[in-house]
């Protein structure tokens, strides 16, 4: 008697994404993996998002979770603007500036009021989201792309928070501030590239 092997349920999402993407654009394989990979595809985005986690960890509760909650929502808003073609001037400069400012905040161990920190992170998140929104691949499955995109962003914050936990130790505090300096230096390089 033949035994029939049926496709594992876990493959449904990727298969569905691929199928729907192919339905309109045969050459575009997009979906969950595309969304997951997009936020990590640019080092300027990566260092800024990790810096949010670093700063949150340095600030402690409640900023450690308020900032990573504020960033994806503001970034999604920026992404929506990008998707709809709403112009946002100086996006690349804004992204580079985000790394510089967030790096300096970590370097200086700055402790502004929570709402100020939230506004800083939220405003810069708009630039990151807008850049992603305008760069989204045509034909990608919006649902799966969006899920992957947000998860990847959140995980980058989590990486920053995990690194930032060294703040608890005496040796960790200067190390964390050094990491902030490196982020700011990276931002300066990206700013130079954006202006060049």
């Amino acid at each position, binding site marked *: *008697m*033949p*035994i*029939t*092997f*049926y*496709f594992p*349920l876990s*493959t*449904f*999402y990727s*298969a*569905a994404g691929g*199928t*729907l993407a192919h*339905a309109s654009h045969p050459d575009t394989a997009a979906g969950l993996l595309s969304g997951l990979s997009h936020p990590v595809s640019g080092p300027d985005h990566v260092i800024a998002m990790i810096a949010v986690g670093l700063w949150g960890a340095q600030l402690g509760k409640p900023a450690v*979770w308020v900032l*990573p*909650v504020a960033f*994806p*929502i503001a*970034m*999604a*808003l920026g*992404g*929506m*603007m*990008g*998707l*709809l073609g709403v112009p946002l001037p100086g996006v690349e400069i804004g992204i580079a500036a985000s790394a510089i400012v967030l790096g300096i905040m970590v370097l200086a161990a700055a402790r502004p009021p929570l709402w100020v920190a939230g506004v800083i992170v939220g405003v810069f998140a708009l630039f990151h989201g807008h850049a992603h*929104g305008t760069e989204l691949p045509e034909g990608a*499955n*919006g*649902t*799966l*792309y*969006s*899920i992957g*995109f*947000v*998860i990847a*962003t*959140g995980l980058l914050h989590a990486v920053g928070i995990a690194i930032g936990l060294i703040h608890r130790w005496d040796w960790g505090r200067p190390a964390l501030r050094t990491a902030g300096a490196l982020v700011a230096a990276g931002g300066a390089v990206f700013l130079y590239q954006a202006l060049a």
Partner: protein
Amino acid sequence: MIATDHCSLITFHHAAGVLAHLVQTGFGGFYDGMAHWAATPEDVMVVGALALLAALGGKDRVRSLVVTLPLAWFAGGALALVIPLLVPGQVMTIVSFGLTGLLVALDRRLPVPLYQALIIAAAAIHGVGNGGAMREAGLGWLGLTGASVSVFIITSLLPALLVRIEKPAGRIAMRVGGSWLAAAALLMIGWWLRAG
């Protein structure tokens, strides 16, 4: 014994603006309905969001969810099976889990009538979508029952596990999860608006 890969049996349909991934498992309409629910990200996310909201609200909210959500889901699906023209727009399914995710992120404890109304509205919207998809696929009541049973199983297990988490870090993790859902919904609305 012969092992045959029947992945080619999996079919997908894009029905009436709803990303309805109709899955043919080969085990019959009931299991096709179960698999359909699991392969529809919007449906999974709304159940996840409601589970998080219930878990944050406490045991009474969880008990209420276990009863109300699957019944309202089935009722919505039944309505769509009986009235063939009744199909919700994709934006309604997105808003339902986005709004719930936002409530989770804000840790807002809604008054009981409002909470019940939210569950019924979200379940009805997604249930109607399920019912329409089942009708188009010829799965009918059996498929709808399978999808509703999937909802019941997850609703029974997930909030029950989550509600036991009492540590603040656990609650924060749930709120972060809610913010991710809200952010994903914002992006998906952008996609929806761009698609026109």
